[in-house]
């Protein structure tokens, strides 16, 4: 078997704030094969976005990757000098943000910024770059792409803007795209279009995706594998259908039970009590223990990862596997 596309080991990204050290990502490890779609789910503050940003080295001070390793295609990204990192960004690894205006410059036409992105990595003429840009825009479903190159971002609707951001990420057919809540700000009908298109694009070009979202239903419809994060740590990881059908970690179960879709209409939802803990004042041991019905004295000691046949989880008192 060839080496995985992405190998993250014991990643730690901390923020050194005046109030104290925020361990936003604390010991996250996973691998991703070429062309695979990995869903990363969690609630706000779980560290899912910081994990995504860390992969591209986009963590700004006071945040810093304090430990661990990120190997993309065998190349170590942690500690890589900025100019080398910039050579990789856009060509081998790209990002799609929740707000497409994070990617787009409001005072440049879409065509201008796309040709800039193309010529940053390839020596081509302006005309050739423009043609490439038009063809990528067509691929993400923008009608009349050649003419739309001269439009500014504000002349596009929210859904179209997100398509442009995706087009820019796809330009160099990178091996990996990190998509951080790419459809969260969009209406359901537009979300369905974008989900469908991104899955097709990833399949066609063999691009692997890390799909970050708080929405289990969205992730379950695109991702082959799923990772569930809580308070900066991975609590469960495995094939999407296995994890969602038959979760072993009580937090994963709690998330699923919170969804109205899993309950009879009008019935009380089985809720997770309490709030997500502040990352500044994490309880000792398992961070989920204070909200967990299965917690015992053992849970003050941080559980190690356990592995069953197909998936990993981190709990002293895992749920039984359904037969």
């Amino acid at each position, binding site marked *: 078997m060839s080496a995985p596309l992405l190998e993250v080991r014991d990643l730690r990204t901390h923020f050194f704030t005046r109030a104290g050290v925020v361990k936003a990502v604390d010991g996250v490890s996973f691998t991703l094969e070429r062309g695979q779609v990995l869903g990363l789910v969690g*609630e*706000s503050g779980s560290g899912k976005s910081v994990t995504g940003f860390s992969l591209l080295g986009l963590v700004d001070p006071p945040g810093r990757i304090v430990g661990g390793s990120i190997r993309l295609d065998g190349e170590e990204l942690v500690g890589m000098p900025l100019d080398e990192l910039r050579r990789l960004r856009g060509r081998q690894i790209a990002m799609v943000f929740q707000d497409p205006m994070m990617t787009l410059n409001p005072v440049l036409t879409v065509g201008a910024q796309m040709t800039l992105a193309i010529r940053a990595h390839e020596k081509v003429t302006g005309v050739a770059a423009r043609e490439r840009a038009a063809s990528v825009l067509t691929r993400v479903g923008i009608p009349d792409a050649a003419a739309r190159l001269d439009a500014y971002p504000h002349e596009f*609707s929210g*859904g*179209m803007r997100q398509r442009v951001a995706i087009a820019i990420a796809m330009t160099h057919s990178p091996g990996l795209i990190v998509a951080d809540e790419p459809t969260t700000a969009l*209406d*359901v*009908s*537009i*979300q*369905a*279009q974008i*989900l*469908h298109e991104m*899955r097709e694009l990833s399949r066609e070009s063999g691009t692997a995706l890390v799909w970050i979202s*708080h*929405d*289990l*239903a*969205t992730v*379950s*419809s*695109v991702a*082959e594998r799923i990772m569930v994060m809580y308070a900066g740590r991975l609590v469960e990881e495995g*094939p*999407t*259908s296995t994890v*969602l*059908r038959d979760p072993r970690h009580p937090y994963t179960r*709690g*998330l*699923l*039970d*919170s*969804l*109205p*879709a*899993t*309950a009879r*209409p*009008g019935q*009380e*939802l*089985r*809720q*997770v*009590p309490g*709030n*997500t803990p502040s990352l500044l004042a994490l309880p000792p041991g398992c961070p989920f223990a204070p909200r967990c019905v299965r917690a015992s004295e053992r849970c003050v000691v941080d559980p190690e990862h356990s592995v069953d046949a197909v998936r990993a989880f981190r709990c002293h008192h895992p749920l039984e596997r359904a037969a």
Partner: protein
Amino acid sequence: MSTAFLTLDGISKRFDPRLTLGDRIAARFGATVEDRPVRAVTEVSLTINPGETLGLVGESGCGKSTLGRIVAGILPPTAGTVTIDGEPVLQNGRKVTTRVQTVFQDPFASLDPRMRIGDTVAEGPIAHGLVTKANAVDYVRGWLQRVGLEPEFAGRYPHQFSGGQRQRVAIARALAMQPDLLVCDEPVASLDVSIQAQIINLFLELRRDLGITCLFISHDLGVVRHVSDRVAIMYLGRIVEVGSTEQIYRDPKHPYTRALLDSVPRLVLEDDALVEFNAITGEIPSPLAPPPGCTFHPRCPLAVDACRRDVPALMADGTDRLVACHVRAMERNNTETTTRENDR
């Protein structure tokens, strides 16, 4: 129905943009200046029965929040009336009832950051004489407890609370006015899933115990299905379908309702089942220039000539469901004719 608790009759709302100086001068000299009003809500008539929760669903820009604000008496409609138990909510553009209260989406924006939450909750009831100043402290503590907060929290400021707790404060503030109708505008949209479940449960419990009637506005079809007795679907300022929650979700009649339901990602639990989406093509047209006829026709797979010409009326389909669709109306007429011929 005469038993209706809340009645909306022919509600329309247009927002006229302020003309620029140049346009105003031109208008003064008799030039025809193009003003492009936004028709946010067009001819909406709806009723809600006592104790019922009506879910109002639509995508962004469809006018659902504007309609909610009109019901709550925050915005005066351009045309039409809103009445609760036969009493108007607005008179001469001013809200004249406290029987309707609102819970907004963003609990970070809807609470005054410089007021202790106890004072925020007490302000309305004191001003309207529901409680004396002397009794306000106990009154507020009672409501905080009712929504699952510690009574001692009354002395705290909004920044000391999490999003879910703030939404509880906002609910307590609305309920402290002892309303008969609650307008909830995306009350759980900005909350995390586990917190969302807590607030939905609180809502179900309060509704059961207090018998409050509710207009529940949301873009989240899953949440609406869970809390509503009936559902109204809105598209570009108009109601396109109204029916019982069960009818709408099991057998949507309007092509837009169907497309919307098909677009919702479902929790996929089967192995390797990458679901196909029946995505609606195209985008929502601008309410500045809505298409003629049925506003959904440019995206509709069933559209016929009549759809491009005439606005379909909201009509009963034989049950208590209403649908605004030419194609469905024709189908119904055809079946009715055949049945009649067969009877003959």
